[in-house]
Each structure stands twice: as C-alpha cells, then as structure tokens.
C-alpha cells in the first residue's frame, strides 16, 4: 500500500511544481504552493515523520500563505517573464539533480535496525537521555540538550532574519508617512 501512496503523492508533487513554474499569476502560485505543502506533509506522514509533517503543514500551508499574500500586497501580483537563455540553468539543474539521485543510491535502506544511523549514537541517547536530561521525550532531549548549541545557533539566525525584515518594513512605512506629510504642507 505504502509504495502506491508514495508514488501517487510524489507524482502529484511533480505536477504541482511544474504548474508553479509555468503559472504567471502570482496569486495562483500562492495557492499552488499551499497545495504543494499539504502534499509534502502527506509524504512525510507516509514516511512516519508525523512531527515534521505538522511543521511542514503549519509553516508551508499556514504562515507562508499569509506572508506571501502580504508580500503580494506590496508588489505586483503578476510575473512578467524576461526572455533569457535557458540552456545553462537547465544543464546545472539536471546535473545537480542527477548528482543528488546518484548520492541516494548508496544510502542504506530505510527501516532496518542495523543501518549506521541506528548504530552510532542513537542507542546511547535512548538508554541515557532520561537519566541525564530528565526529559521524557528523547527527541526533545536531543534537540534542546545534546544539540543545544546547534539549536541556539538556528534560533539566532532566524531571530536576526526577523529583525532585518522588520527594519526594512519599518523604514518603508516611515518614508511613506513622510511623503504623505510633505503632500499636505
């Protein structure tokens, strides 16, 4: 059953991606991107990563839709394609995609307990994490304790990006207000 569900979902993902590229109305692109996120979340559920699927759905289909619409409000909602050479970008994309597929050929199969990912540090986390961190959830213990500095770095990056975007938007609004005041006098 699982291979069939996966095959259908991945085919639909490819179809939606091509539709996003070909779509010129950016409003339609936003809707299609939401559909893409829901399909991707379903793929992740089939892969048994329910928590990742929930993040994908809430960020991709929920917040991104609203943010992209707010962006459309500030720009134009139609894309005017520039005539340009497509040979080199297509070549780069095909080579990179082929390299990625070639890389997956050497990966160990998903699931068996004797693959490297289950042999290295995972058993230690499973047996020691409750004693060492007192967190009942092993995933939380790994994210917030064993990889605490990694998570701190990620949060710093997102925080900085948020501050940058807010400053850009604020500068834009202040300039707008000044223009309006100049018009009145």
């Amino acid at each position, binding site marked *: *059953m699982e291979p*069939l*569900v996966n095959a*259908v*979902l991945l085919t*639909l993902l490819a*179809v*939606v991606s091509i*539709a996003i590229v070909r779509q010129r*109305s950016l*409003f*339609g692109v*936003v*809707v*299609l991107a*939401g*559909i893409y996120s*829901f*399909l991707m*979340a*379903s793929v992740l*559920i*089939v892969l*048994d990563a*329910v928590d990742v*699927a*929930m993040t994908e*759905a*809430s960020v991709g*289909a*929920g917040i991104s*839709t*609203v943010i992209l*619409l*707010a962006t*459309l*409000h500030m720009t134009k909602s139609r894309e005017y394609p520039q005539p340009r050479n497509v040979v080199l970008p297509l070549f780069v994309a095909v080579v990179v995609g082929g390299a990625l597929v070639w890389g997956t050929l050497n990966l160990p199969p998903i699931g068996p307990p004797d693959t490297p990912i289950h042999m290295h540090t995972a058993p230690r986390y499973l047996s020691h994490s409750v004693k060492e961190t007192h967190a009942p959830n092993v995933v939380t213990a790994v994210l917030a304790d064993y990889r605490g500095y990694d998570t701190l770095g990620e949060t710093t990056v997102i925080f900085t990006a948020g501050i940058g975007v807010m400053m850009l938007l604020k500068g834009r609004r202040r300039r707008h207000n000044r223009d309006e005041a100049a018009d009145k006098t």
Partner: protein
Amino acid sequence: MLIAATLAVLAALILAVIRAVRGPTVFDRVLAGNSVGTLAILLLAVLGFLDGRPEWLDIGITYGLLNIISTLAVLKFFRHGDLAYDVGEDAK
C-alpha cells in the same frame, strides 16, 4: 475496507490537483486548495488506522485549523486586496 478508502482518497486528490493546475479562475484554485487540505486530513486519518496508530487523528485537527486560516487569508486578500482590512473603514 481501509485500503479501498485510501484508494478513493488518492483518486479524489488527483482530481483536486488537476482542477488546481488547470484553473481557469482563481476561485477554482482556492476551492481545489481547500479540498486538497481536507483530503490530506482524510489521508492522515486513513493511514493512521492502516498503520494501527489512530492517535494521528489529533494532528488532523491542526491541519483543519490551518486550512481555514489559509483559505480565509486568500479570500480576504482577493476581496479587499489587503490582509489588514478593517470592516469599520467602510462606515467612515
């Protein structure tokens, strides 16, 4: 029984995506997007029971909320061209 339900949901998903890709109006796409969200919830539920983990149903509630928020945002933007639109502005 559950396998038949999965197949039916997949078929409906294919039909909804076809409508979303072909358009032609924005409303077709918004409706198709909403349907895909609903079908994702159904697929989640059916797969949860198929795998013997019906507690996945709780995650379906989150999906339902998200679906409403994104559809409302899209429709509000289409009607007013602005997400921060206030109904009170009409009265002034």
